[in-house]
């Protein structure tokens, strides 16, 4: 019962609602595939080892590090990136709250923060500042905008209720 190994894998992933078919090398991470092959550069590459969280995307609605996920592992799944959060020209409640509350300085971590915050709220973990800090700890902000980020997540959570 030998397995059928291959170096080129045919995958189809729905990215922000659009089916994308591709042939990928198995070592291609979801992060690299989104940026280099699909052209969605909103998702950022920071540490590339799961330490910073700026590559956070949703896979079937669940937040994950794009750098710790292979594209082949997402075959048949639905991936949402920061580009998929807004509804046409209308910012999502999380995006609006981050803008209104200045929840960033340099902005490099912001795509991951926005996607992670969207999931954090949907999970029900945006209840109070301590809980938000705990469940957002996988997204590092080296400008240290944490107070504003926490406030934005809580504000967006209220707006979503």
């Amino acid at each position, binding site marked *: 019962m030998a397995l059928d190994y291959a*170096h080129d*894998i045919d995958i189809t992933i729905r990215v922000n609602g659009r089916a994308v078919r591709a042939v990928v090398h198995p*070592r291609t991470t979801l992060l690299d595939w989104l940026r280099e092959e699909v052209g969605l550069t909103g998702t950022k590459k920071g540490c590339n080892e*799961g330490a910073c969280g700026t590559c956070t995307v949703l896979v079937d609605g669940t937040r994950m590090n794009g750098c710790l996920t*292979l594209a082949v592992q997402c075959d048949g799944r639905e991936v949402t990136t920061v580009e998929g959060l807004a509804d046409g020209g209308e910012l999502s409640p999380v995006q609006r709250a981050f803008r209104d509350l200045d929840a960033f300085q340099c902005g490099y971590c912001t795509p991951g923060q926005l996607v992670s915050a969207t999931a954090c709220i949907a999970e029900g973990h945006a209840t109070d500042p301590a809980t938000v800090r705990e469940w957002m700890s996988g997204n590092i902000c080296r400008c240290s905008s944490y107070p504003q980020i926490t406030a934005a997540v809580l504000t967006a959570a209220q707006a979503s209720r």
Partner: protein
Amino acid sequence: MIDFAYARAESESAAVAALADDHATVLAGGTELLNWVRLGIAAPERVVDIGGLDGLRGITRDGDTLRIGALTTLNEIGEHPLVVAHAGALASACLQAASAQIRNRATLGGNVLQRTRCAYFRAEEPVPWPCNRRSPGSGCAALAGLHERHAIFGWTDECVAVQPSDPAVALVALDAVVDVVGPAGPRPIPSTEFHLTPQEAGLREHRLDPDELIVGYRIPVAPTRQAYIKIRERASYEYAIVSAAAVVGGSVARVALGSVAGKPWRLPDLVDVPLTREALLPAVEERMADANPLPHNGFKVTMARNAAVRAVLTAGGDR
């Protein structure tokens, strides 16, 4: 990352059969394997993706046994009502591990197989210093180097690193059984015997053979009170300096320490010890009398003792 060939296993038996190949490696969540490949810790020619084996996923109660599939993620375990109710130390350990987004990928089977976070070990190829685990016979840079976070039990000159898994510590305190499948069929391994220290087994880290697969865990369900205490340099998303899991039931308190050895370190059980700080401190100290710290990590003996006492008190004693 080096290139490798990839295949999805359609069954548990197909996955086990594929592991007869010395150059094949299992991919579950991938949070460890991808970094191993990046650093050169692993260089698989073929990767077997077991992520589609839904039979290895899920949490059920079967009489007096809680069953957790090896592919269940840390967040699924940490927030599951059955785990919270019957294995609270494990739920807590899972939710204190890594970050929310890593916990959505990381599986229990993969988590316990994670390798040490020793910075000398986690170097990119070519490793610029001695490390017996990267290059057997080269020596141990941590032994005379930076080892504040290293072992206080079970180490040898060959390696002084610690096993970093949080869930593994809780599983050991809970007397869980690791269900393993290999070419000869199923093989249960007590979690207390799963990991190995350098004193016990040299550079071998655990009893899982290369052609075996962890398929799940069994945890006895009994009326107990439990806690998992993790001491770290920041409040979240950080590895433990030390940790302690306590499971208290009847007149027995079972305690396992984390990040103090090459395996979760189970202390001799505390039997008929009053659950007060005054009684527990000397009792734990006595059970840690064989601690043998390195020149720069003596503080971990005190810290581990205090974590153990606090875990027992948090689980169910006087505060």
